[in-house]
């Protein structure tokens, strides 16, 4: 009775805490895609996410499965634990599938925040225009190099059609991101110069860094 209460409290606590681990979300996605067991999940994870997201070891999968089950995002398929070599299989609950879709949409916000972080961090150099322009120039170089790296048409060495499709989608996203960033650098450079000019037209305020 007491154990059940403690378990229920643990579940409630877990459900109230946002799940931040991208590995957990990625594993949930693989289970949404199709029910699976731990070893199979580890292999599919490796194939799907490669260098983008890493599992430290197979134990990572068990930990993640525990966290997902605790939040009622997945459930064990009854009867799959039977036999001499029990291999429990997991499937996504309706809530798990729904939350996975919501998490995916939230990635857009995450991407925007990452760039916002760069812009805000650049603010530390805004008082020294030359330094800020130097960073912008190097940032631009990095994006130009990224543009050069994107393949023209990815060779179809993918193991399946889904992987080939995902590869093409990633390439196109890379290319479009490069364009957006290069245009932003042009804009930011112009704005920094304009801001420095207007600042030069007024006397420095007390405590303001020298220009």
């Amino acid at each position: 009775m007491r154990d059940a209460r403690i378990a229920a409290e643990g579940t409630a606590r877990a459900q109230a805490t946002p799940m931040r681990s991208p590995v957990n979300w990625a594993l949930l996605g693989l289970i949404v895609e199709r029910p699976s067991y731990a070893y199979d999940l580890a292999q599919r994870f490796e194939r799907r996410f490669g260098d983008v997201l890493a599992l430290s070891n197979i134990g990572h999968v068990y930990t993640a499965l525990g966290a997902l089950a605790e939040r009622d995002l997945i459930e064990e398929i009854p009867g799959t634990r039977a036999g001499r070599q029990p291999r429990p299989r997991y499937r996504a609950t309706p809530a798990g599938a729904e939350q996975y879709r919501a998490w995916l949409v939230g990635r857009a916000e995450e991407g925007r925040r990452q760039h916002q972080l760069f812009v805000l961090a650049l603010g530390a150099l805004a008082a020294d225009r030359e330094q800020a322009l130097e960073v912008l120039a190097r940032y631009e170089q990095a994006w130009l190099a990224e543009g050069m790296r994107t393949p023209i048409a990815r060779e179809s060495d993918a193991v399946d059609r889904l992987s080939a499709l995902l590869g093409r989608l990633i390439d196109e996203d890379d290319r479009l991101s490069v364009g957006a960033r290069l245009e932003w650098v042009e804009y930011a450079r112009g704005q920094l110069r304009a801001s420095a000019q207007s600042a030069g037209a007024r006397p420095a305020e007390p405590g303001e860094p020298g220009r």
Partner: protein
Amino acid sequence: MSLLELEGVRKRREDGGALLLREVSLRIEAGELAVVWGMRGSGRSTLLRIAAGIEPPDAGAVRFEGRDLSGRGRRLLGEGIGYCHRTLRFGESQSALEHAMVGPLSRWVAPAAARRRALAALERVGAAHCAGLRQHKLTGGEAVRVALARTLALAPRMVVVDEPVAGVDLAERDGVLGLLRSLADEGVAVLASTGESTGLSQADRAFALGEGTLRSAPQRPLAAVVQLRRAASGGS
């Protein structure tokens, strides 16, 4: 000595307004695919016309194979440099084959030989099926290929292409980019401009042009085959 060298090139807008290019320097080697990215009005087309010798700079030097291009007007076109304008224009009654023959014919190549060269060039760019088509029948990608064929019919050592993927359908775009890459891999220097970052894919060198300044990304090492070809031909 580089195949193409621009040193300290300056160019003001034709109306005498803003500086489009200020002290721009650039070197292109044989077998390189170099792409200049820039926003509208950045001067990327002007830079390409100067690099091709079509338009003189206000100041600075432009040399192709060591020869000064300034004052030579369009004479070097067809003598090593091929230039593709972003808009393909050929006569209403002209077929793609006839269009591709114009270069050789204007250099007094006999019609039969000009036809053979044009057909080979159309074949090379994957547009042999367009030979009998009029301009209005061509897709955006095919139009770029035919424009390149006209240039290639004169066997240039450097091709300058203004916005090869502008207005080209997404499905055809990679084919055009792959074609430019393959020309460079065969040893032709390719200098292209683009307003879309997609045009930078697999370039050996990428530049951003803005506020009259040309900025570059770190250079990619050239493919081993290009280095071997250069060594075999005694190039540096």
